[in-house]
């Protein structure tokens, strides 16, 4: 029997700019909601209703969970969906007259948008309540992550800051879902020796680990990642299977690259006349994705074929079979090496499914249904595996991540190294503030709490990653400068023993995250 841990990570950085009527980067959330979080939930609810026996783990990062429960952002999402539906209605009409090959897909997109909005409203605009209901049925294990998805190995010289990320992540999860999580998604699979002690201190039972962490370990691994790893603190690590996940992840040969699948980039927002799409793009005339995409990947050519849903679904069937067959074959190999009932840990970004890979949710549905109908597979969760008291091995690991090169090269390169000079200083100053002002309530306490909030937001791994990738660099740099600059406002004022009340009220309004934050989080801790 092959045990499968499907672990999805849903994460977006905290983006909320209510000071503007529309803000482009907020579309990251809206697109992901409409194309991944709601359709994924609907698919899982469908499986549950059909009596399919499935399990998986999902991490909603604290920043994403906060945005998903934020009333103004929920309201903006409804506006976004109404725009999408309005465009859909126009598209259904247009494709009766021109580009008639697109008509079926225009109808499909419109129908999907209406159903998603309907489900969203039925859930009281809180999609997480739907996931929580599945968690309560023991279908999914909900887990959390670092408060702002900080890449933790870079901060290992500052245990208080790492603890603040872990503790605030756990606390936010409990506040939103009503119970503590047992699993903790290490942002970017970033692990360093000693991190597991901080996780253990905060009540974490398990985390996921990079695939190469086992072969490079300080101890000899016998199970090679096909059984849980017991880390020195007693926290269990589940090693990502690079080989199997590459069947999906590979940007060269992964299933999502198939020429019959829908193209992500060819979007009506970019090629239909400006006057037609103007109400649905960004002011003044910035063309953006509208979600109406009618072409198949086809190949590296200009003239792309129109998308055929029928052909794509045939490929989904082939790919789900191939995926399970590959696991089964791999299972024989592993069992022949003496490892009974191997555990395959399949870790993915949730937004891949539905948003970037349109057919991805159909793929997951197919895999879960077929696995349930087979005696060869058992989808499970890390907590169930731990509670079953099966085999594991104690290992001491080196630092590792799932980034290119296996360490920190993505979050620390020539383009983004400058940020750490400022963030490290801000951490040191925050630790200093907690010592100098150990017992502040009321206004000064709020001021210090805001400094903690700004510092956590500056530590997000998203900003250096975006700078490294060269996508939305201007925005990432501005956000970093904003949070660090805001931190410095507090530090300078507290150094003069004053509080800038007007500034504080504005800052609290702009970052409505971590309402229960306490600046004592940053009290200095010994490294060991």
């Amino acid at each position, binding site marked *: 029997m092959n045990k499968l841990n499907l672990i999805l990570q849903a994460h977006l950085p905290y983006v909320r700019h209510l000071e503007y009527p529309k803000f482009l980067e907020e579309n990251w959330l809206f697109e992901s909601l409409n194309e991944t979080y709601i359709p994924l939930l609907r698919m899982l609810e469908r499986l549950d209703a059909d009596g399919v026996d499935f399990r998986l783990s999902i991490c909603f990062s604290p920043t994403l969970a906060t945005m998903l429960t934020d009333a103004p952002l929920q309201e903006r999402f409804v506006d976004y969906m109404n725009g999408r539906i309005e465009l859909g209605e126009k598209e259904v009409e247009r494709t009766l007259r021109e580009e008639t090959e697109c008509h079926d897909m225009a109808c499909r997109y419109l129908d999907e948008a209406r159903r998603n909005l309907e489900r969203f409203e039925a859930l009281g605009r809180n999609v997480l309540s739907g996931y929580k209901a599945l968690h309560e049925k023991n279908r999914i294990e909900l887990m959390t992550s670092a408060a702002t998805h900080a890449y933790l190995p870079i901060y290992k010289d500052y245990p208080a800051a790492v603890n603040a990320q872990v503790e605030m992540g756990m606390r936010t999860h409990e506040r939103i879902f009503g119970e503590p999580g047992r699993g903790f998604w290490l942002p970017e699979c970033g692990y360093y020796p000693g991190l597991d002690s901080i996780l253990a201190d905060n009540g974490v039972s398990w985390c996921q680990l990079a*695939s*190469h962490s086992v*072969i*490079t*370990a*300080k*101890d000899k*691994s*016998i199970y*090679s990642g*096909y059984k849980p790893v017991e880390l020195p603190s007693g926290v269990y690590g589940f090693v990502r299977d*690079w*080989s199997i996940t*590459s*069947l999906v992840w*590979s*940007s060269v040969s*992964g299933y999502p*690259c198939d020429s019959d699948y829908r193209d*992500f*980039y*060819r979007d009506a927002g*970019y090629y239909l006349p400006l006057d037609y799409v103007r109400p649905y793009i960004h002011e003044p005339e*910035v063309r953006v994705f509208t979600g109406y995409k009618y072409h198949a990947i086809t*190949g*590296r050519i200009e003239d792309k074929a129109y998308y055929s849903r029928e052909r794509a679904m045939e490929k989904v069937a082939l790919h789900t079979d191939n995926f399970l067959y590959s696991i089964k074959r791999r299972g024989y*190999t*592993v069992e022949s*090496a*003496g490892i009974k009932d191997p555990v395959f840990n399949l870790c993915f*970004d949730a937004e891949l499914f539905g948003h*970037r890979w349109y057919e991805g949710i159909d793929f997951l549905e197919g895999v879960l249904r077929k696995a349930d109908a087979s005696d060869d597979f058992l989808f499970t969760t890390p907590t169930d595996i731990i509670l079953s008291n099966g085999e594991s091995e104690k290992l001491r690991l*080196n*630092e590792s991540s799932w980034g290119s*090169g*296996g*360490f*920190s*090269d993505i979050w*620390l*390169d*020539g383009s983004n*190294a400058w940020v*750490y000079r400022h963030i490290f*200083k801000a951490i040191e100053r925050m630790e200093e503030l907690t010592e100098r002002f150990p017992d502040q309530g009321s206004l000064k306490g709020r001021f210090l709490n805001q400094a903690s909030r700004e510092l956590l937001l500056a530590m997000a791994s998203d900003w250096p990653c975006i700078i490294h990738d*060269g*996508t*939305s*660099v*201007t*925005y990432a740099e*501005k956000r970093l*400068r*904003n949070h660090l*600059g*805001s931190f*410095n406002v507090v530090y300078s004022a507290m150094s003069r023993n004053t509080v800038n009340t007007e*500034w504080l009220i504005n800052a609290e309004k*702009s970052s409505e995250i971590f309402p229960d934050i306490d600046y004592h989080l940053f009290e200095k801790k010994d*490294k060991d």
Partner: protein
Amino acid sequence: MILVNVGSLSVSELRSIAVQEGIEGAESLSREDIISMLEDKYGEYDQEGDDKDPNLRYMSGLTDYRDISKYVEDLPGVEDLPQGYADTEIHVIRKNGSWLYAFWALSPSDSDRLQDSGCSLVLSVTIENNGHREDYDIPVSYSDSEWNVGMPYGNGFCRVALSSVSKDGEKSVLAISEPEALTDSYWISHPEEMKYSESLYRLYLTLLTNKEGELVDTPVVRDIIHLFRKEDTLDE
């Protein structure tokens, strides 16, 4: 990771990106010319000439709202970050298995004092590996503030100090980093066991090799696999 395919972009999309990137006359250029000019353009941004997927860069034209800066500057609370801080200090961060990134700052008073007395600066690197200690200096200038320091695999640590050296050669430590542990891998320190571990080697490969037979992109893993192959007569 975002799956990006240059072939997915139409001429009009490419032209739109080219205009945003400030390429003149993009409206009349062919698809191939625009791709070529964009590649040149993005090539200019590469600081280290590494092997990033060049296709990834095309996302910037599609997702980055280039005019956003003028709005974001108006966000409440934005203050300019200081060029530096008035402390003498040094930090190291591990970049990967073989390199540390060191960055440091010299307080204005220390800088003035040391330059007035004609002192030079060095990074003093200490590596303690399996009981052996190695010390060496890297000369740096007053305008330097960062350096990459190489480190071996092994059981021990690497530490970097910022030191001044007086005219008569006397060295004084100004600031010292936290120690950074070396990558201490069982298999790198036990190559003699590899020839008796063929089944384990095969097992490791099952997790770390894709369907094309390519190994996960991690130099430490490549080094270990290379050792396995060297220590034994295993087929590739």
